[in-house]
């Protein structure tokens, strides 16, 4: 068995990688800021004068880069963990957080909001995140009800796929008749953090972090769940109740992540996979490590997205898909090979 010591080592290693990535991401951009300055600025947020550091650097870090980094991290945590949970619930290592129509629900919500010229704000959130979150939650609830309350896995999965197609068709229809909004809608679905701000960080962090802590506490139940429904029951798990709780919590996490970032693909799929290769399938380690892994992957991807052809920025969803799709094929190939 994989030892506790090895697991702790991996955990510390992931935290070090994440902190390093934060410093590098803070340093890179149109204005280069040295690594040491980034560290000093982050460590001394209040002190107005730090020896030899320009006020503009402080402003860039605290007003522009850090909120974006934090939002990227929290979104990555959410997607990584809910990916691991969905794969466990569906007993399928190829499942992902968007499987129940969350992404298409969010995209449809955003499309509808833009077409109608929705101008609402709630808790400091603008129309786009609100309509994305609402669309995602409504779509998931509908999928859940249509499939008979999630009693069985297969109807849930198939209803999710059908809902995805249906909402995509509706969305295309809306876009077809409202071509002026076409560009905005398509950009949103590609996923991006260029509209990151502290407000979004403050709203999403408690939701996603609370959800993640909850999922970590219940992670052992997922080990039983992947044994199959009958085996899990005979090992003492109330499968339907547990599954419902996992579905609700991970749906809220995913919807919050999508609301502030758009549809970022592959993070929820490949992060739990990569973690399983390193530390095995035990969800008690898989869930917390997927949290860190998701944060690292998305932060790296977003830093690439905004710097690789600077000053132009490419949507981060394109970067994760470009990295993720080949990795997915590699995993498929690996699974097909004889032991």
């Amino acid at each position, binding site marked *: *068995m994989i030892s506790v010591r090895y697991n702790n080592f991996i955990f510390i290693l992931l935290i070090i990688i994440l902190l390093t990535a934060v410093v590098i991401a803070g340093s890179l951009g149109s204005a280069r800021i040295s690594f040491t300055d980034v560290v000093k600025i982050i460590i001394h947020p209040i002190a107005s004068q730090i020896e030899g550091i320009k006020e503009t650097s402080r402003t860039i870090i605290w007003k522009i880069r850090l909120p974006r980094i934090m939002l990227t991290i929290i979104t990555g945590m959410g997607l990584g963990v809910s990916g691991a949970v969905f794969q466990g619930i569906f*007993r*399928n*290592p190829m499942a992902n957080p968007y499987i129940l129509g969350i992404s298409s629900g969010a995209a449809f919500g955003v499309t509808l909001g833009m077409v109608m010229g929705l101008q609402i704000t709630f808790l400091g959130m603008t129309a786009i995140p609100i309509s994305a979150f609402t669309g995602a939650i409504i779509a998931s609830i509908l999928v859940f009800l249509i499939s008979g309350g999630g009693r069985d896995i297969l109807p849930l999965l198939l209803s999710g796929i059908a809902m995805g197609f249906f909402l995509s068709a509706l969305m295309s229809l809306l876009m077809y008749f409202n071509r002026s909004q076409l560009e905005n809608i398509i950009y949103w679905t590609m996923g991006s953090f260029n509209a990151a701000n502290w407000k979004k960080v403050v709203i999403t962090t408690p939701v996603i972090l609370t959800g993640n802590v909850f999922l970590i*506490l*219940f992670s*052992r139940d997922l*080990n*039983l769940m*992947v*044994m*199959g429904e*009958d*085996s899990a*029951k*005979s*090992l*003492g*798990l*109330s499968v339907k109740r547990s599954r419902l709780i996992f579905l609700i919590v991970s749906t809220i996490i995913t919807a919050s992540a999508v609301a502030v970032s758009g549809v970022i693909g592959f993070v929820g799929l490949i992060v739990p996979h990569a973690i*399983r290769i390193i530390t*095995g*399938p*035990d969800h008690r380690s898989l869930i917390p490590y997927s949290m860190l892994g998701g944060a690292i992957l998305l932060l790296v991807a977003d830093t690439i997205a905004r710097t690789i052809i600077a000053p132009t920025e490419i949507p981060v969803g394109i970067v994760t898909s470009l990295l993720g799709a080949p990795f997915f094929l590699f995993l498929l190939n690996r*699974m097909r090979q004889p*032991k």
Partner: protein
Amino acid sequence: MINNPIIDINNLNWSYNGTKVLDNISLNIKPGTFTGILGPNGAGKTTLLKTILNLLQPDRNSILISNDDIRNYSRNELAKIEAYVPQSSKNNFNFTVEQIVLMGRSPFLGRFDRESNDDIGIADWAMKETGVFGLKNKYITTLSGGELQRTIIARALTQEPAILALDEPTSHLDIHHQINILSIVRSLAKKKSLTIIAVLHDINHALEYCDNLFLLNHGKIVTHGSPEDVITPDIMKKIYNLNIQITTNPLTGNLFMIHDYT
């Protein structure tokens, strides 16, 4: 006390989409016995086993476990009394044998507990009993069918149950692995005075290993009792339309069924 049935079933009915799968089943099973459930395909054997495990919920008071309605037990409480070995436990997730076996301790662990040294000791014992201790660090996706089934039996033992329920535990295995599994189960039954209920396909396995048999057909119990009372030429002709003779297996001294091939 010792003669009270550990499983007491009274007028159990079960329907699936309007079709009666179990029709007024009544039976009882004494502790420490090895009971076989036999019958043709579709007779309701697996359904009966699943109701005994509350995987399919029976009507109130139709199944008593240790004199209490099975529906009065929480899943966790029941998991400390009954353990289940399904037909197949194939899985895409790369758990090690030890991780799988330790899951048998789940009903004993609180929300924030990790497995203690005692739990690990029980799992080690179970793996030794079923001969998979040497495989404890192997991934279950690399095991043979027989090794996987012995791992699952070890997990069931780790639950320290009074009742071990097996659903055709040998149906996907080669003959020597079939015998190996059933012999392990029989010796455990003796050593730990476990109550065994097994859905079996092979009638000669039932004759060799079981103390009691229930023969099901169309959801009803056709007959029950000791192997020599249940497996008779008349009954086999009636249920399986098979011409048989019962003889004695010269190697074990137990009953053995031979049949024609017309």
